């Protein structure tokens, strides 16, 4: 069965300046929705609003049922923020137990972690920490997952592996992703939204991304 996450009627202002005003964004299970926008456009704020950790006027619906505080429903929505969020003191063993995940599947995909099962995050590099965070959020059972900058901190080989993982996971989950490494977002997205001047635009072609002033595909 397909599920849908929708967000609209969002009004966000900071010090009298309107940040988000005319938003409509959706995400379906079995699909990846990409979200692009310049720095300060409000992408992370939009994700936090959908998650419920940033309060403002809004309508967020899961299968047409309003959910004001989605962070209380990890079965519906999980969120990878753009910063490291897992306490450094925790070991991989503890993290995988908390999320009820099998470490051997992870180890098979990322053999470089095979000797680190009992290692705490403080002894891992930022990229390794990020990979653990991304993996557990993606693999934990939830209908939808929002990923804020999932490609940042990874080398090109890891990025390819992460893209494979995302495409694989979309079969079970609806994914909403934002990152400035936009070519990867364009590659894997089924729907692509651009956030510009507080409004979302559903793009129909990559040319729209240029027209909306986010990126140039063919630099002069």
């Amino acid at each position, binding site marked *: 069965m397909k599920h849908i996450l929708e967000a609209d009627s969002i009004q966000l202002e900071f010090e009298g300046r309107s940040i988000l005003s005319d938003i409509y964004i959706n995400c379906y299970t079995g699909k990846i929705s990409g979200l692009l926008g310049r720095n300060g456009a409000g992408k992370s704020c939009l994700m936090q609003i959908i998650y419920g*950790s940033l309060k403002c006027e809004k309508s967020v619906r899961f299968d047409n049922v309003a959910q004001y505080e989605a962070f209380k429903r*990890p079965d519906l929505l999980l*969120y990878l923020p753009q910063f490291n*969020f897992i*306490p450094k003191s925790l070991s991989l063993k503890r993290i995988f137990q908390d999320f009820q995940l099998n470490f051997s599947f992870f180890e098979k995909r990322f053999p470089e972690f095979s000797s680190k099962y009992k290692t705490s995050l403080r002894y891992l590099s930022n990229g390794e920490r990020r990979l653990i965070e991304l993996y557990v959020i993606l693999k934990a059972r939830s209908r939808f997952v929002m990923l804020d900058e999932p490609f940042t901190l990874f080398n090109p080989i890891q990025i390819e592996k992460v893209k494979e993982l995302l495409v694989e996971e979309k079969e079970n989950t609806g994914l909403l992703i934002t990152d400035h490494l936009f070519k990867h977002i364009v590659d894997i997205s089924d729907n692509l939204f651009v956030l510009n001047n507080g409004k979302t635009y559903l793009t129909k072609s990559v040319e729209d991304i240029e027209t909306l002033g986010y990126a140039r595909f063919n630099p002069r």
Partner: protein
Amino acid sequence: MTYGLSIFVWLFWFKIATLVIIFYFINSYKKKEYYYYQNLGVSKVLLWMTTIIFDLALFIFLIVKSYKFK
């Protein structure tokens, strides 16, 4: 110098004041880590209520014990 029951009243309010300071400090220092617990379905309120209840219960238990030994 003798201490009566009033010292426990002072101690109690001192404990409350330190709890407020600790709450404020951890709330800003550890705020990114709330996402870990929220993604596991544990709310901030539940985290704080559990911590504060345990902390206060331990404090009261130790106060009562020390009062009996006075």
